[in-house]
């Protein structure tokens, strides 16, 4: 198990390396540079700027320098947010994004799984139809539609909650963004749990458990649920991806100071180092989630052995 995990961890390095290399050269292929402005700078100043950031060097030298700095955990200085390094920008914004995304993922799991269990136990009842339709809406309607509509209802019409803004430590500002962000994964998780629990409940060992006279509660929670959660576990990585992309728009609508805005703005501004930093952070998060999913798999289903 440990060996397998270490192998996977080592396998993540080349993936990250490919991503870094691809983004490094792709963004430099783009027309325009970080210091292009409406009014073009005098050539001397431009040359100085380029030299200060090492952009006058051949691209291979730049690439080598970037990799060397990256190996020390240094993402370099931001080109557009002068006086800030990319590390500082990410360090400021990342906790907010993490809190938002973490809350959304936890809520999606904490509500989605019970909803799925409930729907599968009351198959074809009114509650089941309600749960599945709710899931259909959650899957179909994107968070950038849900959040403004929630803001309109709870913020503008009823004045219950703030629509935009952020205060450190205050959860009130996060309520609507978290709800909007967690709906699509919540819906998927509920649907997956319902489907796979229905399948699991038909297997012989569940009949055995009932035949032993176990109460429904322990049959579901102790016997059926664990294997039934396998599809949910494998959905976790896409769920994190969906929350990450969702947080790009949710942060911009709700005016949260997370890192979501840096990706799009950084790319538009040709802020090379900032975009690279963002892509690396997001990729690392996704890859990390993939590893966690593997571990969860082994825990949920003891039949899975990685060493074999």
């Amino acid at each position, binding site marked *: 198990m440990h060996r397998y995990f270490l192998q996977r961890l080592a396998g993540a390095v080349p993936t990250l390396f490919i991503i870094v290399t691809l983004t490094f050269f792709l963004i430099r292929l783009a027309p325009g540079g970080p210091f292009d402005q409406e009014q073009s700078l005098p050539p001397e100043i431009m040359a100085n700027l380029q030299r200060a950031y090492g952009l006058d060097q051949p691209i291979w030298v730049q690439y080598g320098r970037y990799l060397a700095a990256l190996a020390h955990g240094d993402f370099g200085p931001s080109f557009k947010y002068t006086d800030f390094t990319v590390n500082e920008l990410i360090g400021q914004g990342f906790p907010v994004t993490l809190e938002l995304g973490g809350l959304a993922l936890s809520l999606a799991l904490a509500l989605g799984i019970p909803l799925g269990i409930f729907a599968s136990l009351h198959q074809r009842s009114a509650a089941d139809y309600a749960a599945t339709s709710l899931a259909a809406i959650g899957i179909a309607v994107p968070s950038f539609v849900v959040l403004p509509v929630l803001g309109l209802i709870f913020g503008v019409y009823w004045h219950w909650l703030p629509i935009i803004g952020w205060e450190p430590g205050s959860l009130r500002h996060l309520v609507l963004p978290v709800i909007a962000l967690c709906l699509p994964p919540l819906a998927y998780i509920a649907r997956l749990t319902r489907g796979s629990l229905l399948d699991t409940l038909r297997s012989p060992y569940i009949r055995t458990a009932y035949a032993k006279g176990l109460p429904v509660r322990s049959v579901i929670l102790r016997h059926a649920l664990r294997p039934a959660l396998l599809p949910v576990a494998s959905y976790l990585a896409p769920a994190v991806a969906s929350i990450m992309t969702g947080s790009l728009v949710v942060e911009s609508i709700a005016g949260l100071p997370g890192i979501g805005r840096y990706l*799009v703005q950084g790319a538009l501004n040709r802020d090379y180092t900032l975009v690279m930093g963002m892509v690396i952070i997001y990729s690392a998060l996704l890859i990390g989630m*993939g590893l966690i999913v593997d571990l969860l798999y082994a825990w949920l289903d003891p039949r899975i052995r990685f060493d074999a």
Partner: protein
Amino acid sequence: MSAGRRSSINPVALVALGIIVLVVALALCGPAFNPNGIETLDWAQVAAPPGMRGAHWFGTDRLGRDLFARTLEGTRTSLAVGLVASLISLGVGIAYGAVAGYLGGRTDQLMMRLIEVLSGLPLIFFVIFLTVVFGRGQHLLFVAIGAVGWLSMARIVRGQTLSIRRREYIEAAVACGASSVRILVKHVVPNLLGPVIVYATLTVPQIMLFESFLSFLGLGIQEPHASLGTLIAEGAGEIDAASWILWVPATILAGLLLSLNILGDYLRDTLDVRDA
């Protein structure tokens, strides 16, 4: 294997189909009944609520542009992107999946491994990237979105091809001395088209969602053109003063996506298309 014969037609799917037909008809024919253009500014009616005045049935936006005309244009754009990009991903997916499934063995393993790696990457960031790097044109938008959509399509096609490959008529074609290319084009692809197109109905809403997401971020459709995504972005900024600017495009997008998903799910379940 018609949907109707297998089971009685699901009323929910029928309603979904009705909504899709209605929205498409409205998007195509609506402008004929409304005198307002998409770029005409009506200074007498800036941010006017929905009503009959000046035939602004859905109201106007901050610049006095008619929201009915703009929403219909946005719907047309979103539908067009959804269809074209789905076709692109269908084409690429069929070519890739059929070749992998038909050749099998090492080639198949390698090609599927590549799909696995690509699906593991944060592709949405690459699309954001591509649109920024190579300019924000509509054509690129189609290519970029189609380029992402083909991955799951290729998987489905491969699964179908694997089962088709074992059929007698393929064996017969091989025995007749037909080349692999000929077998693929004449025998494999026509036979997998049916189930794959059913699956493609589910990619249309996914791609429309993706397009409106990019447009919402300002990376997709550019002014003065509209897509449902740009209209929702506009509306989201006006919720405290002019909520209809949000309600109109949000309702249309939500209704359309929901209906397309329900219809696609229904078709897939009824015709029993599995991704193998």
